[in-house]
């Protein structure tokens, strides 16, 4: 058979009027969609310009290409990830296939014949199958499995059924076309040929097939045009907005908050216009999948916070802002308890498949509440204590050295240049649990003969709790004063045992002019072990490690703490949620001071997880996590209680008593 004959007539059997109607309706639908997209973009651009520029375009294109091909953020939920991958790949193949047909038909190009035709037909059919299977999986989760996190909205289902109708009608009209003559080369259109063979076997007449084909084509074209019109709307919008927001996404450690550009007196998001373009683009990109809700520790503990509802509330406010100028008020849309329940652990940001920075928006809303003066008393206490005493514990800053208890750590003289500064932090200075960590660190540093200095009473809170709780002005004041102190000592490296201080000093202070390297004590201890300067600590029994959010998820450091533990114990067991997917202790975001009621407590949930591993010792690397987990211990039944230790405490113990059991 002549290779050039292996093709098909495009738009054969379709009246010119119907073709014209299709083109007109498609152009109208695309025009409508473009108009909606532009209007939405205009509404977003009434908001603030993002303070930080996005990464270079090349990096962003690589990032989006990698995302579209591999879809890594979706693969945490394997079933949903596979379903989405099938839908995306199938949809993409069908769009490309349709474009090929369009080019063959409407341009002088002639390539849609022979082997190209056969292979293209096969791939397009496979794409159609992938789309249908993916959509069926999607609908099964929605209507049969009814997973809790899924937003049960009729319009999401309707859009899925519409896509399914497009795919099935495509196969049906292909079958109707093939069945008229049933040429052998159409076997490459596997699905269409199989259905056509059935029609042929049923002895359906050619005239009937042509009528069916024409009707199916008309229906298919109509639904496709409708699809184009609905692209910017609701659930479908994530195809455009999701990709765009991913392109604009700022590359940064997850725990690093951005610095807002205050407009006059209002650094927070009192209205949608006080957010920036990217915030609103991200709100439009939300797929309503609910991964953030299921990952949120506050939601898990039965508190009123639902991160998805925060994002959808912002989206709704943007829509309302287009209707009435004064309808874009934000804080009034949300339950205050919900806003103050957030522990800023970043789990919502991490699991979001379209990269929405959810907790950043919650902090923006908190900032607006702070500016309005409507905050919980415990938050006001926290701010006032930090402002008055430079620490959130309400202590006199002159007591900062009380933890040392005669160990005489070297306090830097004014103006003395410091190569290694041990940043004790407020918890390490004032909280008895933290003080124990500080003393352990001093013992380790002295034992290793490391030359270091501490700032003593000139150290002040980094401002982390205040910033996460929305008091940006207080944070910036703390930051500037601390940076001035550190600059006065020409500090080269800061060592700290507090992940919150670590994150703030490392990721947020540079925006205010800081230029020093920062090391968490787990990294320092792992380095000492790797260099052979710390050894002979084996013999520790079974332990489990709780990853602090601001170290693991927030800054990607999950290996160093484990290297330190492995140098002491060969029986490390992991909790179900560990590493970068760890579960919060409840202390972040001011949570150590704020106590919003829920059905359960975050720290209790985490303590139960730790106890279920069977390990009697829970190790962590954060002076905030330690008291929280100890508090959670109180909820455990008798005999299930665990001992909570910091890495430094364990190392100091093993150094002092390497052969004995953990003290």
């Amino acid at each position, binding site marked *: 058979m002549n290779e050039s004959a292996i093709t098909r007539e495009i738009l054969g059997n379709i009246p010119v009027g119907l073709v014209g109607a299709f083109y007109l309706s498609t152009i109208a639908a695309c025009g409508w969609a473009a108009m909606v997209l532009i209007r939405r973009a205009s509404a977003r651009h009434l908001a603030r310009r993002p303070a930080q520029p996005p990464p270079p375009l090349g990096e962003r294109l690589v990032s989006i290409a990698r995302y579209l091909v591999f879809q890594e953020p979706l693969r945490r939920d394997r079933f949903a990830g596979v379903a989405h991958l099938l839908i995306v790949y199938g949809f993409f193949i069908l769009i490309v296939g349709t474009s090929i047909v369009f080019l063959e038909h409407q341009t002088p190009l002639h390539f849609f014949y022979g082997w190209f035709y056969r292979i293209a037909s096969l791939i397009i059919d496979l794409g159609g199958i992938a789309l249908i299977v993916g959509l069926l999986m999607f609908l099964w989760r929605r209507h049969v499995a009814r997973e809790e996190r899924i937003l049960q909205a009729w319009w999401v289902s309707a859009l899925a059924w519409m896509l399914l109708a497009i795919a099935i009608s495509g196969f049906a009209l292909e079958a109707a076309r093939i069945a008229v003559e049933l040429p052998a080369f159409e076997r490459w259109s596997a699905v269409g040929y199989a259905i056509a063979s059935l029609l042929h076997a049923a002895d359906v007449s050619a005239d009937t097939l042509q009528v069916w084909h024409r009707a199916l084509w008309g229906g298919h074209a109509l639904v496709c045009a409708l699809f184009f019109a609905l692209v910017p709307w609701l659930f479908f919008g994530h195809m455009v907005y999701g990709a765009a927001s991913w392109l604009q996404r700022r590359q940064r450690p997850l725990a690093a908050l951005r610095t807002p550009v*205050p407009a*006059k*007196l*209002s*650094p927070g998001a009192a209205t949608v216009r006080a957010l920036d373009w990217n915030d609103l683009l991200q709100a439009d990109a939300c797929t309503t999948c609910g991964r953030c809700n299921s990952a949120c520790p506050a939601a898990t503990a039965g508190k009123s916070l639902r991160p998805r509802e925060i994002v959808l509330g912002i989206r709704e406010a943007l829509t309302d802002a287009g209707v009435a100028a004064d309808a874009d008020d934000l804080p009034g849309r949300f339950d205050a308890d919900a806003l103050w329940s957030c522990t800023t652990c970043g789990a919502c940001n991490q699991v979001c498949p379209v990269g929405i920075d959810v907790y950043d928006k919650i902090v923006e809303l908190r900032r607006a509440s*702070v*500016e*309005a*003066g*409507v*905050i919980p*008393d*415990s*938050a*006001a*206490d*926290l*701010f*006032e*204590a*930090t*402002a*008055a*005493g*430079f620490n*959130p*514990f*309400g*202590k*006199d*800053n*002159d007591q900062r*050295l009380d933890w040392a208890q005669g160990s005489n750590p070297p306090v830097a003289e004014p103006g003395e240049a410091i190569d290694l500064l041990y940043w004790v932090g407020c918890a390490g200075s004032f*909280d*008895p*649990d933290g*003080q124990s960590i500080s003393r352990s660190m001093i013992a380790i540093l002295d034992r290793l003969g490391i030359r270091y200095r501490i700032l003593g*009473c000139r150290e002040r809170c980094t401002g982390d709790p205040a910033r996460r709780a929305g*008091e*940006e*002005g*207080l944070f*910036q*004041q703390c930051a500037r*004063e601390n940076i001035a102190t550190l600059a006065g000592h020409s500090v080269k490296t800061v060592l700290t045992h507090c992940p919150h201080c670590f994150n703030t000093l490392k990721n947020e202070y540079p925006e205010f002019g800081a230029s020093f390297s920062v090391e968490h004590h787990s990294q320092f201890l792992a380095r000492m072990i790797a260099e052979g300067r710390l050894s002979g600590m084996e013999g520790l029994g079974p332990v489990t490690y709780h990853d602090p959010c601001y170290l693991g998820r927030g800054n990607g450091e999950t290996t160093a703490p484990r290297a330190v533990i492995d140098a002491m114990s060969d029986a490390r067991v992991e909790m179900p949620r560990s590493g970068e997917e760890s579960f919060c202790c409840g*202390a972040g975001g001011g949570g*150590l*001071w*704020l*106590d919003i009621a829920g059905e359960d407590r975050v*720290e209790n949930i985490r303590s139960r997880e730790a106890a279920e591993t069977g390990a009697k010792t829970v190790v962590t690397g954060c002076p905030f996590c330690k*008291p*929280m987990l*100890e*508090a959670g211990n109180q909820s455990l039944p008798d005999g299930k209680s665990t001992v909570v230790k910091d890495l430094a405490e364990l190392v100091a113990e093993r150094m002092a008593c390497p052969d004995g059991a953990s003290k």
Partner: protein
Amino acid sequence: MPGWGFEMRRVAVIIGSARSETHAGTSMLPMSDRGAVALALARFGADVCAYAFDSAAGCFARAAGVETVAAISELKTGSVDVALVGRGGCGADGDILPARLAEESGAALVYDVIDVHWESDRLVVTRDLGRGARDLLSVRGRAVLIVSDSVARGPYVSRFRINAEKAASGESPARAEPGGIGWEPATPRVRLGDHASRVAGRAVERMNALFGVGGVAESAAHLVRGSAEECARHLLRYLSHHGFVERRVDGEDQGASGKTATTHSAEPKSQRASVGRVSIPLRVRRRPRCLNDPLLPTRGPFEIGVDL
């Protein structure tokens, strides 16, 4: 307090003659406001009965431990020239404790006090008139400050707003001042080591602890018996320990322990008051209020009270 359940949140103090059942009035005080209870008991002696809220019965019942309440206080109040009543110091239940105190002592009553600090030999009291308006009162005389831990707080004023207001008025941006501490210091919601049981952190409890009344850990061992000067030194150490006053510059407070070393911060002499031969750098600060309404005036200072 022995015999009083934790769930009992408020105490009713009946001021009057319990024996004759003729009560002059009722003061509804927070359970934790043991200082006020003790003060009332000390002031009115046997004419006071204490009632505790019985959550099971849903009503107030005479507290069996009233003698215990009386025993915790050895406070002997002298006459008072001015009764300063902070927000919440007079509750919605019709507290008459401040009024009774004022009446008994012939003292002036000042309500809505939001800030008190020493300037030289006088107490500067800021009284809130609402909507940002203030009265500044210069008080010289014996004063009693009545506060409550159930006070309804006003709106928080952010650093951005404070700085903006200061910038608008030509002042330099706010800087945190070292050494001070607010009335209600932040309290972590989980137990932090053993501190939580020793220093609860609420203003009223700290004040009670300061005067050796109430509190779980307080006992006779807390009492200092000695000369007036020695007692004053101990009091100063105690005040500075709890953040009510700045640490001393000179070494006078070392005499109490003999070896106590503290880190000092310089304090302007204008902020010192004098009790006997002991210099007291006393400053009590409260949170800023209503700074977003700068158009309303601050009046004063008005002189009230009598010279010591």
